C-alpha cells in the first residue's frame, strides 16, 4: 500500500529552538556529579589564573611603562632615570626572531613536505619524525649549551664574537639565531605536516590527472593549500623564540646594548652580541642584578602584549582558514 504525499505546505506552526528537556544532574551518580563539579572548577580556575597574570602584569606595566623606555637605549648609570630604556633589547628580540624563523622556515617546510609527500623508505621517515620530536623535547637550556659547544669551535669563529687573543666566545646573533631556529622548528614542522595530511588525496590526484608532476603539484596546489597552516606554524615559532631566555643568556652574550663585531656593516651586528626583552627582564628583576624592577615590569608587559598579539594572530588565521575552505587548521596547539 502506498500513500500519496501531496506537495508540502509551508510550515505554519512555530519552530522550536534550543535543546529539549535533558536529564538533571540530580539523578546522576555522586562520582559523576563530583567529576562535573571538578571540570567546572578547573576550567574556571584556569581562567582566573590567566586573568590574574594579565591583570597584574598589565597593572604593573601601565604603572611603569613610559613611551620613552621604548625608544631609548640602555645606558650605564647609577639612578633609575640615567639607565635608559630597552630599545636595544626590543631590536634584539626582533632580529633574533627574524634570524630564527629565516632558518627554521625552509627547514620545517621541506622536512614536512618530505614526510607528507615522499616519506620513503618508511623507516627513514620514522627516524626523521622522532628526531624532530627529540628536538622538540629537548630543554632550551640544553640546546643552548650544545650551541655554545658548537659555536666555540674554531671552525665557526667567523660567526661569533672573537676575543683579541683569538679565543672564540661562540656568542652572537648568528649563533643564538641558529639555535632559536631549533626551538621554532617543531611547531612549524608539525603545523605544515598536519596541514598537508589534511589535504584530501583526490586533490593531489586531480593535479596529477591534469598531467602535472609531483613537484608542480606541491608548488602550485599543496603549498597554497597549507599557506595558513604555515602561517600558524610561523606564529607559534615566533612566540616561542620571543619567549625564550636560556639561549639568549648563553649564546647572545647578554650585553644590554647591541655590540658589533668586525667592520662589515650588517654582518657586524649579526656577529655581535646583544640582549632581548626576556634577558632584559631577567637582568633587571630582583632575581638577576635586581637593579630596576620597574623596568623589568615594563619590559615584561611589552613582552606579554607581543605574545598575546601573536596568539591572537594564530587564532585569526585558523578561523579565516576554516571560513574560506572548510578545512580546519590542525596542530594549532603545540
Amino acid at each position, binding site marked *: 500500500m502506498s500513500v500519496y504525499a501531496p506537495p508540502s505546505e509551508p510550515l505554519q506552526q512555530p519552530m522550536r529552538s534550543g535543546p529539549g528537556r535533558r536529564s538533571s544532574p540530580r539523578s546522576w551518580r555522586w562520582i559523576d556529579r563530583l567529576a562535573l563539579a571538578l571540570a567546572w572548577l578547573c576550567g574556571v580556575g584556569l581562567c582566573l589564573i590567566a586573568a590574574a597574570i594579565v591583570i597584574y602584569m598589565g597593572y604593573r606595566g601601565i604603572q611603569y611603562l613610559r613611551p620613552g623606555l621604548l625608544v631609548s637605549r640602555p645606558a650605564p648609570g647609577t639612578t633609575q632615570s640615567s639607565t635608559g630604556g630597552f630599545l636595544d633589547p626590543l631590536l634584539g628580540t626582533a632580529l633574533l626572531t627574524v634570524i630564527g624563523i629565516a632558518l627554521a622556515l625552509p627547514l620545517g617546510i621541506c622536512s614536512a613536505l618530505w614526510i607528507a609527500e615522499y616519506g620513503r623508505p618508511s623507516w627513514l621517515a620514522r627516524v626523521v619524525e622522532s628526531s624532530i620530536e627529540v628536538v622538540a623535547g629537548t630543554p632550551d637550556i640544553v640546546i643552548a649549551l650544545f650551541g655554545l659547544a658548537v659555536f666555540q669551535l674554531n671552525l665557526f669563529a667567523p660567526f661569533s664574537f672573537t676575543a683579541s687573543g683569538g679565543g672564540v666566545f661562540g656568542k652572537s646573533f648568528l649563533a643564538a639565531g641558529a639555535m632559536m631556529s631549533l626551538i621554532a622548528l617543531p611547531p612549524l614542522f608539525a603545523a605544515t605536516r598536519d596541514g598537508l595530511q589534511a589535504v*584530501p588525496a*583526490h*586533490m593531489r*590526484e*586531480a*593535479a*596529477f*590527472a*591534469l*598531467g*602535472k*608532476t609531483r613537484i*608542480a603539484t606541491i608548488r*602550485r*596546489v599543496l603549498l*597554497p*593549500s597549507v599557506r595558513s597552516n604555515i602561517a600558524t606554524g610561523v606564529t607559534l615559532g615566533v612566540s616561542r623564540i620571543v619567549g625564550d631566555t636560556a639561549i639568549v643568556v648563553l649564546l647572545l652574550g647578554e650585553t644590554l646594548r647591541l655590540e658589533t663585531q668586525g667592520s662589515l656593516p650588517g654582518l657586524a651586528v649579526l656577529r655581535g652580541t646583544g640582549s632581548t626583552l626576556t634577558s632584559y627582564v631577567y637582568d633587571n628583576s630582583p632575581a638577576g642584578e635586581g637593579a630596576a624592577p620597574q623596568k623589568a615590569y615594563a619590559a615584561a608587559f611589552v613582552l606579554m602584549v607581543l605574545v598575546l598579539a601573536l596568539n591572537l594572530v594564530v587564532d585569526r588565521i585558523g578561523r579565516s582558514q576554516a571560513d*574560506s*575552505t*572548510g578545512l580546519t587548521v590542525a596542530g594549532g596547539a603545540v
Partner: protein
Amino acid sequence: MGPETLLLDPADFMARGQHDAPAKGAPVPPVRTIVLDRPPVPVLPPDEREAVRSPESTGPERLRLEDVSIAYGGKPAVKSVSLSIHQGEVLALIGPSGCGKTTLLRTLNRLTELTPSASRGGRIMLDGEDIHDLADTTLRARVAMVFQQPNPFPMSIFDNVAFALREQSRRRPRRRELEPLVIDALRRAGLYEEVRDDLDRPALRLSGGQQQRLCIARAIAPRPEVLLMDEPCSALDPISTNTIETLIGELRRELAVVVVTHNLAQAHRVADKVAFMYLGDLVEYGSTAEVFDAPRATRTRDYVRGAFG
C-alpha cells in the same frame, strides 16, 4: 516458503511470554532456515561470455583496451578486459561496489600507478600508442579526469582553469594569451555565464555543482581526447546532476567520455554504451538499450533489474 516456516507465530509468541519454554507436548515450531537453492549470482556459461562483443561505433576509436588485467598486491581487481572507446559516445561502467570499475577507469590515465602495490597486464592503446610508452604527464593531459568530490584548487576560478594550460609549456604564458582559452573551456563546461563577472573569485566560494563544472572546465581546457569521470554527480544535488548530465551529452561530440556510476538510472540517461563489470570481469558490453532491455548475461539482467548490488 509458506507461513509455517516462520520461527514463531507472533500471537503465540506474545501469549507465551518471552523466556518460557514451549509447554510439554506442544508442537515445537519449525526453525526457519535460509535455503541456498542456487547461488545468488549465477555463473556465466562459457558460450555466453562470447556474447560480450563490440557494438557498432559512432566515431573514431580513441582508446583500445586489450586483455587489461589489474591486481593489487597479487589480488586481481580487473580480469582480462578488452574494450574500445570511441569519440562521440559516452561509455558507462556499471557494476556493484568492488567490481573494479573505478580501478579500470584510473588505469586509463595510469593513476593506479600511485598505488605502489598495483600491477597491470595487457595493453591500453591511445590513438594507436601504448600508454605505457607515453610520459605520464603527456598521457594525463590527453586523458583527463574528473573526480567524485568536486576538488577545485585553492586559487581563483581563472587560475584553476589556467593551471592545466600553464605548465605544459616551458614559458609561463601571459594572462592575455590564456584568457580566450580559459573562457572557451568555461563556456564548454557551461559555467561561463555564471562566473563571467568575476573570474578572480576564489574557486572554493562556488557551489558544489559549479565547482564540479569548474573541474570539468579544468579537465577539458587542454583539449584532451578522452574524459574520464568517476561518479561525477554522486556528491551533487538533483538539479546540479541534471546540469552535468546534459553537459556530458554535449561533451561527447568532441571527445570520448567514460563515466563510472553507481546510479543505473544515470547510466541509462547519459550513456550510449554500457559495460557491466562484476568481480573484476567484464560481463557485458553493448549499447545502452541492449544492456538494459535485452541483456545477454543472467548476471547483467539481475543487476539492471535490481536483484543485487
